[in-house]
């Protein structure tokens, strides 16, 4: 954890209507590393990601990205700082083709031809389904293919931070392995990633650092390896059987 923080949340509270969801989240995402955000259902993981993206406004506390306070910025402004977000629902535009989904994510491109060809080839290598079904309506893809498209869309242009909410949810083991390989390659390329997961095996294979949430707070943070090696700690934090 020697790298400087790219994203920091300090005492962040989020209220949605009458509900107080985040109760002072403190989180550090080091630059160039893959940070896993773990926790039981309802711990506040998705709310944390949505609060970072400005989809739900923090009621107090500070969110800093690359030394800039982004707490009060709008979602488009936050995304404009080179932060890509893949929601739990994947956010695929079902009525658009795979190609159109990719073009939409490439903010600099007016036409598909404007997308960096080398990068596109790299994405096709990571996610062959994206190339295979390039002209097909995204709504017709399987769950795994949609997840690949969602991640491919997030990296169609270089981004400083990639935020992904439960990429392994509902996927077959073969697709999960494919996803793990893709994130490993992204990590090797220097992309900073914040990843919410429930799948501890997924997390242990990818994570550099980890933060565990419970009841709207980060209750543990440290190295992923240390948590992976400590089954008692996993049990106490995540309720996993020893």
């Amino acid at each position, binding site marked *: 954890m020697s790298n400087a923080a790219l994203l920091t949340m300090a005492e962040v509270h989020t209220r949605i209507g009458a509900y107080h969801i985040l109760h002072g989240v403190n989180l550090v995402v080091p630059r160039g590393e893959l940070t896993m955000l773990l926790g039981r259902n309802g711990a506040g993981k998705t709310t944390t990601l949505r609060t970072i993206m400005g989809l739900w406004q923090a009621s107090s506390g500070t969110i800093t990205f690359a030394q800039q306070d982004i707490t009060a910025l*709008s979602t488009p402004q936050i995304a404009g700082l080179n932060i890509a977000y893949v929601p739990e629902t994947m956010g695929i*535009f079902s009525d658009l083709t795979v190609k159109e989904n990719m073009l939409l994510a490439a903010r600099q491109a007016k036409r598909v031809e404007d997308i960096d060809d080398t990068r596109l080839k790299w994405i096709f290598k990571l996610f062959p389904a994206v190339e295979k079904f390039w002209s097909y*309506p995204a709504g017709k893809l*399987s769950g*795994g293919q949609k997840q690949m498209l969602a991640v491919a869309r997030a990296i169609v242009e270089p981004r400083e931070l990639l935020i992904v909410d439960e990429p392994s949810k509902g996927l077959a083991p073969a697709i999960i392995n494919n996803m793990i390989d893709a994130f490993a390659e992204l990590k090797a390329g220097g992309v900073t990633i914040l990843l919410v997961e429930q799948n501890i095996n997924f997390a242990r294979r990818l994570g550099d650092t980890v933060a565990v949430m419970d009841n709207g707070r980060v209750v543990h943070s440290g190295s992923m390896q240390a948590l992976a090696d400590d089954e008692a700690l996993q049990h106490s934090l995540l309720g996993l059987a020893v």
Partner: protein
Amino acid sequence: MSEVKHRDFDWKPLALVPVLSLLALPLIGSGSTWLTLTVAGLAMGMIIFIIASGLTLVFGLMDVLNFGHGVFIALGAFVASSVLGSMGDWTGSQSLLRNVMAVIPAMLVAMLVAGAVGLAFERFLVRPVYGQHLKQILITMGGMIIGEELIKVIWGAQQIPLPLPEGMRGSLLLGDAAIEKFRLVAVVVGLIVFASLAWTLGRTKIGLLIRAGVQDREMVESLGYRIRRLFIGVFVVGSALAGLGGVMWGMYQQNVFPQMGAQVNVLIFIVIIIGGLGSTGGALIGALLVGLMANYAGFLAPKVALFSNIALMAAILLWRPQGVYPVTGR
């Protein structure tokens, strides 16, 4: 990896238009009367589509229920009556070219005024009530009433005749069928608007953003686009198109009056509900069906003509509860 199907065009809703026309043929009996009514229905449908296309996008993109859309129709029609009134030499000419040269500026000025008023309408009436449907209905209806009163202040409360230019009057004979020239003009204008919308939505990045925003505006924002700016643009264009539709509707009826927008409003909402909220293709199908149904029912059973479009909407919603072309994710 599971098999993925290529995009299959859903032709069934499109087939409803010829099916309705063919079903009406034996009921009407006379082929020439049927042809006259069909062209009249298609013309009416195209005008309603011009008006409804903007409204359906406004609802699809921002979930805004604009019950005041009718005011742009009336405004466009009154502005056109003033412009055409000042170009009497051109509209009175026997030359179709000179007539068209008068109608085009009338349309452009009407669109410009309706678009500008639409910009103010969005800023001062719609923006404060985003996400609040009941307030949207009340405030936009209030906006329409105020708009109608302002029209009365400027043009007077009485009905104003809007005669067709000389070259667009009368009919063309196709066998025994008389086809009014202006109805053909309306079909052509409607097709131009549809083609422009289809090109913009299907071939440009702005169109891509609108289509995506109709499905999932939160995700569009997460990709870094300011959807509110997009919405304002769509609202202004939608208002301008309603203004254009108002010009066509006024010329179709050959008169304009301040409440004409409110009169058409009901038909527009039927159209966008039949089409599927947020779907321009659906709005076209819905508008053609409504236009045809109004003309056929008006001829066959005038007493049920008013009810016929409601019945049509109910029948279609029983078949497809989200409209003929539902937008995924809504």
